[in-house]
């Protein structure tokens, strides 16, 4: 358990570092951001694996995670994989972050059909435990949001990144897309159960899909503003900004994570 707390703490610190690096004099240091993102990744893996195995750095778990991680990198599969991340703990915003992480990693090249198929593959591969978490992330994004209400630290993280809304159109399509994928996949996977999760899921079912999607996009926009024009430049494949975004590549994943953090926490606060 303490590993989880430790991992979470390290993730918070890493995200803070990435955020601060943007305002540092001399521009973003690629090397440091790359290292921070690696730490963030390791911490996340531990955090997620710990949830299920109850043991930090369970070899099989980590390896499976690692394999899934590797699998997900092919552009067509990543988003959906993250969505169904079996390690999604019921009370953490991380899976959302990861989802965003993935989809943005691939420059948001999502293919709904592929996602669905990957989802199915993923589900087939998953153990029942995985399905449990998967179910928790079913139907709608809100359902995932609600469980995240419980930990106060996720809101802490969100607060840290609170910014006024801004419009990030480039994010909207992927957001919506992922949302819809999730819904589809959730419907398709009814295997396994977790009574706790079901309850939580049920309680959140009141939210509308559109609302969730709107929240997603608007919150994503918030995050975009946090990270400045650079991020949107990357997504819009703006050549002029390509290099500066490239420098932020080490940040990108974290950007994504933060992006997810803020929307969800904002949603939690709002509702």
């Amino acid at each position, binding site marked *: 358990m303490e590993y989880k707390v430790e991992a979470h703490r390290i993730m918070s610190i890493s995200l803070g570092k990435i955020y601060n690096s943007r305002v540092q004099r001399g521009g973003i240091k690629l090397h440091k951001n790359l290292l921070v993102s690696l730490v963030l990744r390791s911490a996340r893996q531990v955090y997620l694996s710990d949830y299920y195995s109850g043991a930090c750095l369970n070899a099989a778990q980590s390896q499976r995670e690692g394999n899934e991680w590797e699998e997900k990198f092919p552009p067509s599969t990543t988003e959906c994989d993250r969505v169904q991340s079996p390690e999604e703990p019921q009370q953490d915003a991380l899976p959302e972050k990861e989802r965003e992480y993935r989809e943005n990693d691939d*420059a948001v090249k999502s293919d709904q059909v592929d996602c669905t198929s990957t989802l199915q593959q993923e589900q087939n591969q998953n153990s029942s435990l995985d399905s449990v978490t998967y179910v928790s992330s079913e139907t709608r994004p809100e359902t995932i949001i609600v469980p995240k209400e419980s930990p106060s630290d996720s809101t802490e993280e969100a607060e840290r990144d609170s910014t006024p809304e801004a419009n990030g159109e480039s994010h909207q399509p992927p957001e919506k897309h992922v949302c819809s994928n999730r819904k589809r996949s959730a419907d398709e996977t009814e295997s396994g159960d977790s009574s706790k999760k079901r309850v939580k899921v049920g309680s959140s079912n009141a939210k509308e899909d559109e609302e969730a999607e709107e929240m997603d996009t608007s919150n994503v926009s918030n995050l975009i503003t946090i990270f400045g024009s650079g991020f949107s430049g990357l997504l819009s494949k703006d050549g002029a900004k390509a290099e500066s975004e490239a420098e932020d590549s080490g940040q990108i994943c974290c950007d994504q994570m933060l992006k997810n953090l803020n929307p969800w926490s904002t949603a939690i606060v709002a509702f």
Partner: protein
Amino acid sequence: MHLILCICIYTYFCMCVCFFFFFTEKMNTNLFLSFFVADVISTVEFNQTGDLLATGDKGGRVVIFHRETESKSESEELGESGEYNVYSTFQSHEPDFDYLKSLEIEEKINKIRWLPQQNAAHFLLSTNDKTIKLWKVSERDKRPEGYNLKDEEGRIKDISTVTSLQVPVLKPTDLMVEVRPRRIFANGHTYHVNSISVNSDGETYLSADDLRINMWHLDITDRSFNIVDIKPANMEDLTEVITAAEFHPQHCHLFVYSSSKGTLRLCDMRESALCDKHSKIFEEPEDPGNRSFFSEIISSVSDVKFSHSGRYLLTRDYLTVKVWDLNMEKGPVETYQVHEYLRGKLCSLYENDCIFDKFECVWNSTDSVIMTGAYNSFFRMFDRETGRGVTLEAWRESSKPRAVLRTRRVYTGGRRRRGDVGVDSLDFSKKILHMAWHPAENIIAIAATNNLYIFQDRVNAENQ
């Protein structure tokens, strides 16, 4: 060894000169100490003869020290070598702004490298994050006197007072050191330049940033040749960056670069124009028992140096220094623990950003001793023949006259001796990142934040 102490205190920028004795192969530490206080020093480098020492600081200034050569007989009697005095100070780089990317460019000097001397003038390369400059350092100690039309102050003479013609002659004058920029190598790098290295051919040099290495000709500023490019097509796939690069000291076609993953790559420029494919790759398999969240960070190589012989490589990662044999790629031949006691504190070092500190490492002139910095103003020296390491301190208050600089110890368990420092009482803000070793003698220059310490080994001739 007897110690001879002499203290002279200069108040120019709080510069103090204290003579002590410093460290020899027997691990007796005698030090000859000079201070210099300035802005935070970011690089230190001796020239090829060791007579000149250049330091660069965070404010973009370069200060050059010159070794005074006292008369021989006097030196031998007193057993003193020349001391280093300020020779020249100049502003090398100014803060800059990249308008296209809205990024500020720091003026901090990342590296200084001297060129081999070819005439009376000295040349050095200094670089900040983006621009490399070649500076010419020349002395002027004569000036023409006896002009016909101007008087000594330069005022135009009244023509009517000029009755005869004289030929101006060169008369000795006070020494004046002039530093002028001769070349500016700009716009070669998208990412932050971390290393420069002058080639043994005397004509070219390389500059390395996070993802690319360029080769320049010293006379050509508008073109550079890209020899290494590890930028992935998709930046999201980025897994490692270049952290340091250096040319081989004798072979002008070989260079090495280190990565954030702890690997070293030796490249041969004769093989292909673009040396993305290495000739040799040096990496040590990771010890699975030491795996932690921060394994990747602490395995990142912060500095790489060829030995003077050209046979070995010295690398520094966060907790160790390693010596590699160019003929053996599978692992280092020697590994020295610099501050293993920090392994359990990696998390707090990550929080306070200390884990990202980039320590340098240096060889001595005979490649028998290696040195690197640590925290709490400590620096470590390792004798390669015996494998023993010693901890020394660069701290004014602890350097007393007539004292042998005693070795320090960090208490990590066992019997605690007087003077041992506990791990928790280490001052992590006092870090020694930059240092240089004289190319021929046992003289070291240690930069401790904004103080420069110069330690000399002084052997008392009487007792030999």
